[in-house]
């Protein structure tokens, strides 16, 4: 298998993996396995999948710099787009199944509930990133493209806060996401990056 084939295989696997939660959701729904409150189950599952995929997206760059696994960078855009796919499904379920497009209720739900407000803000911030996730935009925006796409750090923080604020006092899961996010952001700090690079070098020479 040459390099190109390897990369294609990897991409295919990533597609399948990212689509698996959706396939499972559709399957469970068809088998009425979503329980007494399917609406809530769909909202929770699409939301959690989006959050997990967001963590994977944020992991691509550190994986590349730390381990020199260039293939990770090739998956970043795809993973990011899957994040917004699941976020759209998450929002659609909220607006449609939960609120039946009753805008009076939805308006109140968004404005009166801070966890919805931060979640919705994260979604709005995702839109420009999705729209500019192509080579044309990268060329056109140049330096500003990188600056714009740093919004993903803020989106990550808002998403974890969104989760943290909606749970009923058992914070185990949101804390796990917060710790992972914290590590992924920490690994982007230049001094931390330098230190790890130095440490790696030292090991390579001694090894």
């Amino acid at each position, binding site marked *: 298998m040459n390099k190109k084939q390897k990369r294609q295989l990897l991409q295919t696997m990533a597609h399948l993996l990212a689509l698996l939660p959706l396939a499972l959701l559709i399957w469970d729904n068809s088998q009425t396995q979503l329980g*007494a409150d399917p*609406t809530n189950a769909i909202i929770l599952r699409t939301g959690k999948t989006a959050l997990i995929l967001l963590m994977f997206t944020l992991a691509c760059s550190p994986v590349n710099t730390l381990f020199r696994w260039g293939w990770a960078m090739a998956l970043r855009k795809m993973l990011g787009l899957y994040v917004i796919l699941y976020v759209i499904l998450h929002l659609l379920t909220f607006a449609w199944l*939960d609120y039946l497009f009753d805008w009076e*209720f939805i308006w109140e739900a968004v404005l009166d509930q801070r966890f919805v407000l931060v979640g919705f803000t994260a979604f709005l911030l995702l839109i420009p990133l999705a729209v500019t996730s192509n080579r044309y935009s990268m060329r056109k925006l140049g330096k500003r493209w990188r600056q714009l796409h740093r919004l993903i750090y803020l989106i990550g923080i808002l998403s974890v806060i969104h989760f943290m604020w909606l749970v009923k006092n058992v914070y185990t899961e949101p804390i796990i996401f917060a710790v992972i996010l914290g590590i992924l952001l920490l690994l982007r700090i230049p001094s931390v990056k330098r230190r790890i690079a130095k440490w790696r070098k030292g090991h390579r020479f001694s090894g």
Partner: protein
Amino acid sequence: MLIKKQTGIEIPSSQLTPQSLYLSRRTFMKAATAVTVAALLASCAPNEAETAVPAIVGTVEGEGETAVIPSPSTQTDELGNAINSFEEIANYNNYYEFTTEKEDVAELAAGYPLSPWQIEVSGMVKNPGVYDIDKIRQDFDQEERVYRLRCVETWAMVIPWMGFPLAKLLNKVEPTGKAAYVRFETIHDPDNMPGQKSAWFEWPYIEGLRLDEAMNDLTLLATGLYGQELLPQNGGPVRLVVPWKYGFKSIKSIVKIELTDKIPTSLWMASAPNEYGFYANVNPNVDHPRWSQGAERVIGKNGRQHTTLYNGYAEQVAHLYDGMDLAANF
């Protein structure tokens, strides 16, 4: 023994949909089959006493086997809201003693021993004592009460409970003049209730009512639902049901009832005092600090409906809070 009683909530008989019309034809055919099966089973059943409930029967969908569920005597609450299915009520449970996953409680709670079971009634009462659940079932006539349940998480159900007013028990034990509050405690059994090993809460579960709230006719000690004894996941063998308060006030699997002059601190008050107060009355105008309480979704339906003050029981309970600041006393 099952005694049907009016509960202060009058339902004109004209509003009740006859069972045969209510069931769709398909369900009706299924029910007919199930009745036949039920009749066969009942003829083999050793315990005749259990079949005192009218045997209108439904089937549980989505399971390989046909379960026989005794039906309640009515299909709606007094406002015409359809009751939830037995399957929904028995499989969607907020019972943190087992797990925080509502869909998993039923499985984890299956087989939890509900007998023998005793309730200790103590504190400021003339007749303290330990009451056996079987004795309680004998001493107090069980009535059916169809109540709306509104969870603080904004979902809702309509449930046909069986039980008796807490006032009857309190009258028997005779609170002294000093008693002002009733404090309830759930069984503490971390070996069999895995959720009680969670460090996020201080176990056991505690709840409390003001004595006049406890004496209100709506306040029920429930021992059953859908015409049968309470299952473990629904808080069996005996739980509180306070329909005008958020669901968490309706403490499950009670082992202690104490009359006191001090305001009890509930598990939720201890866990997050800024979010959960002592009263926890259903109130669309007083939001949870992190989410709105203005709308609710009834399990089994899509879309939301407006939440009503005291969950629609204002006529029976609003006088308890005359002159009180409901936002301060949340």
